[in-house]
């Protein structure tokens, strides 16, 4: 049996062959999940082709009592998940790759003399350099089969005949060339973790550990006088599942209690599918993905109280956002748009008025320099209002606006005049006072055929006030004007 064999031939050779359709997408997803899982060993884990993972274990092996033990632990845990794997350890990614796939000895000694290198690699086939099949075949025709065959020969003729790749790969194997991996996750600035000899299963235990991790993280943050803006909690389950929970803070946090509380809200949140500890969690890690210098503490005594309130408000916003979702807790800003429904924009309040890093995963809005949120493109003809305090001059607008304007039956004296009475939600309202029209047109450059609206502020005989509009200019755009109620005033 070898790759490239047709199914019929394979069946002929092995009658009881079980054939399964290849699912590259599923396999890729499995590999990604494994890669995430591997971040339990090191934060620097990368995908390698369609069937491999590369972990940078520099400086972490001692945590697992050496490289050999680390490999053994890793393979044992993978086997427990039903995954057969081979592993190699070497001083650079290329060498580890070669050892894992082609060598009998999987772990290279830490210090590799030329002699040891020759012993380890010279007997491996040229495919161990990661060359493509055609190059390997070409070289085989020239009598070059093993790495030793090219390592012991002059470099120039080989480069002249087969290109720079084989020799370059050889240098990489020796560690003469810098090679790097592209990890799936960037290592966090700060992180704290706890491993458990026997997995923990209860939410209480998870929360208790969370508090300890928060303590550890705060110690790390304090050394650099920083506070955490984005924090991630990773729960590694025994069965290989990795659960990541991220929270954002609207001010740099450096209090363990505040951090633990944010996650506690999230864990208790009814929207979050409850933490399913399953067979248990054997590793918890709390990472600070984004840290910022702490604001210098407020010294003026008279302002201290207000600073306290502001801090309490920021913490409150974080907790509400963690529990209800960042989109449920918003601040709003005015947008200069003609259409009333586009005149305001909402943005998650966790961004607050504090400086924020652009976090594309969180929102489409990006914060501008003065701390206010600006929408890069919030609609047609939209310009952000310069300041929020120029607000006073705004025309009368209703307290509530309907998401969809509701059609009404209105009676007017003349087709293009204000209504005398109208029926909305089955109640007849006599218009006692009215102001209008205020003519608002949709942006013609975007929607040239959108009808113009004439808005009226109408008060009925009982003092209830409505914002009505007639759609379409009578005689020019339409002959049967349609009436809507778009909002109600307080």
């Amino acid at each position, binding site marked *: 049996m070898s790759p490239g064999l047709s199914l019929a031939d394979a069946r002929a050779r092995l009658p009881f062959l079980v054939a399964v359709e290849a699912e590259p997408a599923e396999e890729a997803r499995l590999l990604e999940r494994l890669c995430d899982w591997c971040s339990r060993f090191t934060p620097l884990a990368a995908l390698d082709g369609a069937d491999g993972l590369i972990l940078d274990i520099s400086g972490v092996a001692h945590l697992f009592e050496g490289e050999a033990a680390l490999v053994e632990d890793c393979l044992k845990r993978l086997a427990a998940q039903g995954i057969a794997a081979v592993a190699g350890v070497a001083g650079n990614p290329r060498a580890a790759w070669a050892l894992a796939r082609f060598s009998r000895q999987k772990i290279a000694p830490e210090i590799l003399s030329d002699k040891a290198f020759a012993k380890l690699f010279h007997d491996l086939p040229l495919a161990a350099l990661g060359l493509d099949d055609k190059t390997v075949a070409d070289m085989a025709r020239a009598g070059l089969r093993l790495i030793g065959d090219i390592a012991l020969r002059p470099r120039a003729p080989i480069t002249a005949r087969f290109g720079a790749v084989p020799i370059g790969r050889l240098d990489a194997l020796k560690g003469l060339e810098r090679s790097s991996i592209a990890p799936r996750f960037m290592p966090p600035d700060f992180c704290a973790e706890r491993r458990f000899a026997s997995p923990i299963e209860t939410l209480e235990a998870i929360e208790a550990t969370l508090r300890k991790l928060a303590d550890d993280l705060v110690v790390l943050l304090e050394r650099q006088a920083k506070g955490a803006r984005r924090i991630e909690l990773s729960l590694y389950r025994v069965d290989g599942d990795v659960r990541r929970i991220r929270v954002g803070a609207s001010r740099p946090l450096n209090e363990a209690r505040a951090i633990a509380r944010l996650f506690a809200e999230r864990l208790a949140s009814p929207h979050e599918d409850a933490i399913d500890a399953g067979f248990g969690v054997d590793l918890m890690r709390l990472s600070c993905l984004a840290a910022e210098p702490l604001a210098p503490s407020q010294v003026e005594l008279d302002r201290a109280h207000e600073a306290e*309130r502001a801090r309490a408000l920021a913490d409150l916003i974080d907790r509400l956002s963690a529990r*209800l979702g960042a989109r449920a807790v918003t601040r709003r800003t005015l947008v200069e748009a003609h259409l009333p429904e586009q005149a305001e924009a909402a943005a998650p309040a966790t961004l607050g008025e504090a400086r924020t890093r652009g976090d594309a995963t969180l929102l489409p809005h990006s914060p501008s320099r003065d701390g206010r949120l600006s929408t890069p493109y919030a609609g047609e003809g939209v310009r952000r209002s310069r300041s929020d305090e120029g607000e006073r001059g705004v025309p009368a607008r209703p307290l509530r606006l309907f998401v969809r304007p509701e059609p009404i039956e209105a009676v007017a004296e003349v087709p293009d005049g*204000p209504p005398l009475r109208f029926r909305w939600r089955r109640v007849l309202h006599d218009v006692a006072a009215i102001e209008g029209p205020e003519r608002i047109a949709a942006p013609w450059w975007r929607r040239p055929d959108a009808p113009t609206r004439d808005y009226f502020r109408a008060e009925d005989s009982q003092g209830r006030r409505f914002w009505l509009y007639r759609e379409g200019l009578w005689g020019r755009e339409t002959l049967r004007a349609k009436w809507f109620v778009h909002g109600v005033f*307080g």
Partner: protein
Amino acid sequence: MSPSGSAEGMARLRRAVAGIEAGAGLSERAPRRLKLARALDSALGGGLADDALHEIAPAEPADEAAAMGFALALAARFLSQRPSAGLVIGEGFAAHETGALYGPGLIAHGLTLSRLVFVEAPDADAAFWAMEEALKSGGPAAVIGEIWNLRGYSLAASRRLLLAARKGRTPALLVLASAYGQAERMSSAAETRFEIAALPSARIPAAAGRDLPGPFACGARLVKARLTVFVDAVDSPSKDGRPSGRPMDRVRAQRARLHDAAHAVRLEWRSENLAFHEDLAFDDPPISLSLAAASGDGPRPASQPR
């Protein structure tokens, strides 16, 4: 048990409750009182306490917008006293049913948009939870809740909100959006309850055609006001030489009047100076009182136990 014995027992119980509440971290600080309008302030003991729960109910279903307008006007006044932001908490579905609060409209109503945080809770329970958390934290300058589903709103729930408001010294304005016509029947721990009805505004005469609508106006009826502020003032003689009786009696008299169903105070909201304008001609003029709170030499209500 003799009457004096029962009074003693009552006093003991009060002390015990005060002890429990002090242990719960409740402050002994007297609340700052926010003035609303003369006709209401006297019945409120000087104004709306800034550390209590105030309920606002519409008189009829269609008055809900007016009730919200009144609550937001109160919020604007509370926000003008503190630099912090206000929190507006509502149920998510309400935006589709009744229209969502509209930023330009809020500005026109006298609020500053950058100082409001909007919280959309998935249901009433979450909204009450958010209100309680917000009040306890002491961060916001005011917490406005608008709740439609009042099934979960009980004496206990309102008591929790009241205690949270005391703890965080934050005023809570709860709009009982679906409790129209029930303002007098409800029982809750709230300090005050208003019933709000829309009233025709003061029209502005137009040159031609019909009049223009004036500023927001509503009829506010104080259905409930817990008042314990004047207890110690009862025996002090009035200093300004007025022949009237003891302040407590007068306050009682005033409240009795305001509890009268026919007696609503007409308030007109002036968003440009964040003040209510009372229309004295709307009803017979309210009794003008010089209360202990107002007189400089009287016992300060701030020192009274609450």
